[in-house]
């Protein structure tokens, strides 16, 4: 029986990658992703993980090499953050449209400028539309579990898409948490050896990455979209399997004290646990506040989201990225447009907070919940409010 052990989340993620028995790792260092790939290179150097470790010369090449490796039928993995992810942008779209199943950990960090190594979600949100499955971990155990699940989702013949597992830089990646690493035998049962649908094989030659004229392009995009939407069903099956084997359950949207809540905080990633503490203390004071957090960001789980918010009068959406010149942040934007089709809908207070590693404390969540309640009362017209900005 696996036991819980205190370990740094980054190390735990690399141990999960090892448990997944990857064949090729290609990576380039960037804070705060470094501990993951350093540890992986150690595992390879010690022969504990039988894989090729390609220390590429850039993130653009990291993803390109992972695509090449996956194309020959290898289980491929990479990890990055921030500027590195931005440098991969071009290949992000190629990987999904070429239907390359690979897994990448994104240790979320702000995008320059000013250069800043701390956490927010602006790196991954700039990749929102790249056609990848995108998952968010709220703690170290989830980071481990989602990593294992990601390979199974990506490689499913009904999906064949790359998957990004997001975890917050430093505030999650560098903390020590109690984590249960599953047994290899159980992982092997859950995640068998990768059997590619198509691969570059001299005995059965195929051409990958062909030139697509207007007569075929739109059909390719439609297929990618269908596969991405269909990945939610596959994820549900994978989560069921995972629960059966490991006893931990996962859903695309999770609720916390949402029953009877009039105000719901909406979060993603590791801030969720702080927000839960804030919910606890507001509940103690008799305020009807709850929380939902979105684990599956792409494809967006509309049905589960509507289900989770059906009793709420007001949503306080916490975005950790900004869509400059728009209505707020990407999560707020998604939710507002999703709700537009609903006759009955809650008031949406949209907050942009925590950019570039600014602390999001229990008090800040209480402040956002209180503001949301106030604004909802008067149905205040707002696009978004940036929280904690010093005026002087």
């Amino acid at each position, binding site marked *: 029986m696996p036991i819980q052990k205190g370990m740094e989340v980054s190390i735990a993620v690399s141990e999960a990658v090892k448990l997944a028995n990857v*064949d090729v790792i*290609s990576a380039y260092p960037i804070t705060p992703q470094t501990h993951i790939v350093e540890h992986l290179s150690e595992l390879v150097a010690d022969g504990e993980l*039988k894989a090729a470790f390609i220390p*590429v*010369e850039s993130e653009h090449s990291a993803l390109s090499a992972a695509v*090449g490796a996956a194309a020959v039928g*290898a289980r491929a993995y990479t990890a990055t953050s921030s500027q590195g992810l931005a440098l991969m942008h071009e*290949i992000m779209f190629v990987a999904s449209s070429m239907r390359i199943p690979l897994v990448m950990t994104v240790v979320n960090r702000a995008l320059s400028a000013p250069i800043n190594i701390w956490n927010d979600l602006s790196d991954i949100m700039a990749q929102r539309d790249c056609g990848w499955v995108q998952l968010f971990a709220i703690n170290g155990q989830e980071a481990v579990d989602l990593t294992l699940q990601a390979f199974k989702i990506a490689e499913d013949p009904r999906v064949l898409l790359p998957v990004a597992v997001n975890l917050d830089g430093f505030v999650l990646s560098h903390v020590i948490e109690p984590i249960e690493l599953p047994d290899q035998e159980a992982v092997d049962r859950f995640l068998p050896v990768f059997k590619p649908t198509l691969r570059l094989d*001299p005995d059965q030659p195929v051409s990958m990455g062909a030139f697509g*004229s207007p007569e075929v392009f739109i059909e390719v995009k439609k297929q990618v979209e269908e596969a991405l939407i269909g990945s939610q069903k596959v994820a549900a099956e994978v989560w069921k399997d995972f629960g059966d084997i490991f006893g931990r359950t996962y859903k695309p949207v999770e609720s916390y004290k949402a029953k009877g809540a009039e105000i719901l905080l909406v979060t993603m990633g590791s801030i969720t646990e702080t927000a839960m503490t804030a919910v606890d203390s507001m509940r103690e004071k008799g305020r009807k506040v709850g929380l939902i957090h979105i684990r599956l960001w792409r494809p967006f789980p509309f049905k589960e989201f509507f289900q989770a918010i059906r009793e709420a009068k007001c949503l306080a959406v916490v975005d950790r990225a900004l869509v400059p010149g728009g209505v707020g942040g990407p999560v707020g934007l998604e939710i507002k447009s999703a709700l537009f089709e609903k006759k009955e809908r809650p008031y949406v207070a949209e907050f942009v907070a925590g950019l570039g590693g600014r602390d999001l404390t229990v008090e800040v969540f209480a402040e956002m919940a209180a503001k949301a309640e106030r604004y909802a009362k008067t149905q205040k017209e707002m696009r978004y409010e940036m929280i904690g900005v010093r005026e002087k």
Partner: protein
Amino acid sequence: MITEDLKDFKRFTPKTLPKEEPLVSGHRACQGCGEVLALRMVAKAIGSPMIAVSATGCMEIISSPYPQTAWAVPWIHVAFENAAAVASGVEAGLKTLMAKGRIPEKKIAVVAFAGDGGTADIGLQSLSGAMERGHDFLYVCLDNEAYMNTGIQRSSATPFGAMTTTSPAGKITAGQTTWKKNLPAIMAAHDVPYVATASPAYYLDLMNKAKKAAMIKGPAYLHVYSPCPTGWRHGTDLAIEVSRLVVETNIFPLFEVIEGKYVVRKNNKPKPVEEYLKQQRRFSHLTPELIQTIQTRVDAEYARLLKMEGMTESTPTKTETKEE
């Protein structure tokens, strides 16, 4: 060691050329294209089992309009600047899968193809990385001396004086104002086991070099001169003649760098560069003074190449190519 890798190397002769065509006809290259000819020769020389990786560019576009493909061997294209990186992943993937017994153990040639723009400019970083890391693959630069796929813009491999759509012959400047980047030297400086130049007019030489390069363990680099009648503005029947003249004038000398030793195909009675330049309208604006400038440079470069040969104490190895 190269001698070990090449112990079964047999040189092609006109009678022993392979029949197999990894790149088949029906592709959409322009009439008289020298690049697709060079590509076909390299692919033919290497043959199956091989995995081809193309950078974005003319050869990728003309060979893969979905749902057709001219590739009879497995082929992948991902983007413009990353052929060497994709090939790195392909090679590492094959190696690991073979080591784990998931695919049969055998030598599969991994060959990356890119134009001069995809090599000398935007792809130089990923190429340098892959060479330095020592992947077992061959990188082939098909050098048509400009960005042809996007409409004949200059690259750092465009020769001095050549007119392109972004180095026009204007009132003040006369075409390309810089000298061609020396890619084979840059590759040789990576201390890879094998670097060579080739030209389609010397087809046996080209094919033998390609075969050798693919057999050698570790990274190899082949720089192939690839005439483009459309971009260079010469007759569509002249690709071979132009690619012979470029060697006969010493503008593009043929040589190998085998484990650091330069082996040059000697040409001590070069034709004047003017003979080469005058066939192509991309040079038609050049004044006699500019032609002389080019002549001086070409002579100096050739002398430098011979010096490199002397400096690297080339002792002919068993595997060295004889003159064709």
